[in-house]
């Protein structure tokens, strides 16, 4: 009985003596909302304050120490600073790996109607739009259950894109605005002169 215990103790000592290796944050690609990274060994974790509808893509490098349990845990706190629109839903997509178990989704004022995932994509829909924050997993350390991401390997570059889905009327305004821009653009285009 002593040998396995000794082996475990040696392994633990070696792990403790090893230089710290963990998920590393490599910056943001796309999106203009504020974010804060809280990732630690084995946990992908961040907050985003959505002040616009532009999706946010956060880039990380995965280390072996992150995958000791086989998968990477994930949580996030996603805040609504849009001002005039509630979150009708949220979408998540991974550049590599797949979503395993989806844990909890806790909107502060809204209500969840559906949580779906399919491979590298996941989505959350709200039956009542959320105007404050949404806790994904245990980001607030309040007993929530973290999500998990499978199929990752040490050294992988992982990008996760998070998008806030606004209420339909906001989309309509956005589309009508784009339509107006297109119409103005056509009006301003110089007319071809007939030869």
């Amino acid at each position: 009985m002593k040998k396995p215990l000794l082996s475990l103790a040696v392994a633990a000592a070696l792990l403790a003596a090893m230089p710290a290796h963990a998920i590393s944050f490599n910056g943001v690609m796309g999106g203009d909302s504020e974010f804060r990274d809280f990732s630690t060994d084995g946990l992908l974790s961040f907050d985003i304050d959505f002040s616009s509808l532009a999706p946010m893509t956060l880039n990380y490098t995965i280390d072996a120490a992150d995958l000791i349990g086989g998968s990477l845990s994930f949580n996030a706190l996603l805040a609504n600073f849009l001002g005039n629109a509630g979150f009708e839903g949220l979408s998540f997509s991974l550049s590599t790996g797949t979503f395993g178990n989806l844990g909890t989704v806790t909107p502060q004022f809204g209500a969840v109607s559906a949580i779906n995932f399919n491979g590298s994509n996941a989505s959350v829909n709200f039956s009542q739009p959320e105007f404050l924050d949404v806790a994904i997993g245990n980001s607030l350390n309040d007993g929530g259950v973290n999500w998990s991401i499978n199929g990752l390997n040490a050294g992988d570059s992982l990008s996760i894109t998070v998008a806030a889905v606004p209420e339909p009327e906001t989309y309509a305004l956005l589309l009508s605005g784009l339509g107006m821009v297109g119409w103005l653009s056509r009006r301003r285009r110089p007319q071809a002169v007939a030869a």
Partner: protein
Amino acid sequence: MSDQSNGHPDLSRRSMLLGGSAAAITAAFTGPITAMANTIDQGYNASCSPADASALVTSPYGPTAPVNDMVTGLPLIELPAGFSYKSYGWRGDIMSDGLPTPGNHDGMGVVVSRRVGRSNEIILVRNHEQSTSTNAANIIGGSRSNVAKYDTGLTGSDYQIGGNTNLVFRDGNWAESYATFGGIYRPCAGGASSWGSWLSNEEIGSNAISSEGKKHGYIFEIPADTSLNAANVNPIRDMGRMAHEASALDPDTGYWYLTEDAGNANTLYRFLPNNINGGLGSLHEGGRLQGLAVRGRPGADLRFPTLCQEFQCDWVEIADPDADRASMSTSVGTVTGSGPFRGAYANGGAIFGANEGCWVANGVVFFTDKATSSATSSLPARAGVIWALDLSTLVLKAIFVSRDRVVGNSPDNICVSPRGGLLFNEDGGNSSPTSQPIPSQDLKVLTPAGNSYIFARNNYNFTRAQLDAVGKTGATTGNQRNTEWAGSVFSPDGRVLFVNIYTGVTLAITGPWTKGSL
């Protein structure tokens, strides 16, 4: 005796005054909130139309309809589409300290907003505008030695049972509440400091002395966390003894602006602290109290302005802010004036009807006069006026003048949102004359043109059985739709409006704020 300068001290003090919770707020919430904070003041002082009176206009948020409370399921209020709310701290609810929540929910302010780990935590202090009781057990915190109390003695045959409770709102949910101060008389509007405390203002004009040798009509300071610093039981005497209403801090200068609810015997006051760097207890170091006067018109009667009417003002000294109240002859008749008003009037102080709410935003003092609308007796006496005093010029302007309770019904507490919208809490009646029936008291918004629109309506009308069914056994029953709103204040990030229905419940409201001007 008049002070024609605005008396602004070195503006670098602003950074010191903002050194407490405000700095923490800035550090914790950058980007989106900073952008909103930069839009404070929509220019009410510049775009008011010179009409005779204000009008009710269509709300940009859309019409209101009853909305169920997310906590109890009861339709406590009407709101525009997209808004929702959570109730908390009902009268009679057992608080986190085991004491029952007092009633008469009045002024309220955010005194701390911070991140604790990744959590977003807001601490509010709430006034309970309770008056007196013959039963000492009704003194707020009376049974607890850790709750500071000013006066537990008898005045005549009564104890003073007004006081304060603190509330914590964490991550979009109400988390806890507890008693923080007692033994005072009717704390009404009050006001938040920038260093994590609240000024609880007694609304009483009296020369009576209790069995403990205490007078009333003072201002007290309540810290955000009374487990670290108990409330100071000593009043801030230099801020005056009178029927206080609101106190509003100008963070640019460290000066406070005070209102008094004394019919035809009050003015706007300014308090210049000896220690303008702020901090808990700094106001107890004393200061000068001054009153507002119209230049060249001593004792000016400002009860009946027209919309956009302007007055060039000065500040006049008040010799003894703790002087007794007494009968006095003024330009509007014989009144009983508080010591501060008598001192101001003696040096030319102006006269208002009955001032209530007060808020400073971007160098402008906004305050309400609930009592007046017109000298014509056929018009309602409590329709109300909202004033704006530009601190850089000392020009006072009537930016809202209601001649009809449908337009404005005795505007009481006010607040300015982080985006610059001014919200006023109605505390009026429904008796004629009005242009339409008045089914409820409203939260109304002032537009830059000097008009108003409805944001929310009081819909509190429940039976004992309805309230008992949701565990609110101590809540008031019956039709309370015409009970006042009070204590409105936005979270510093502008996403949540906290407000009281005076009947005895506190609400946190959120929704698509930028669809309108709040």
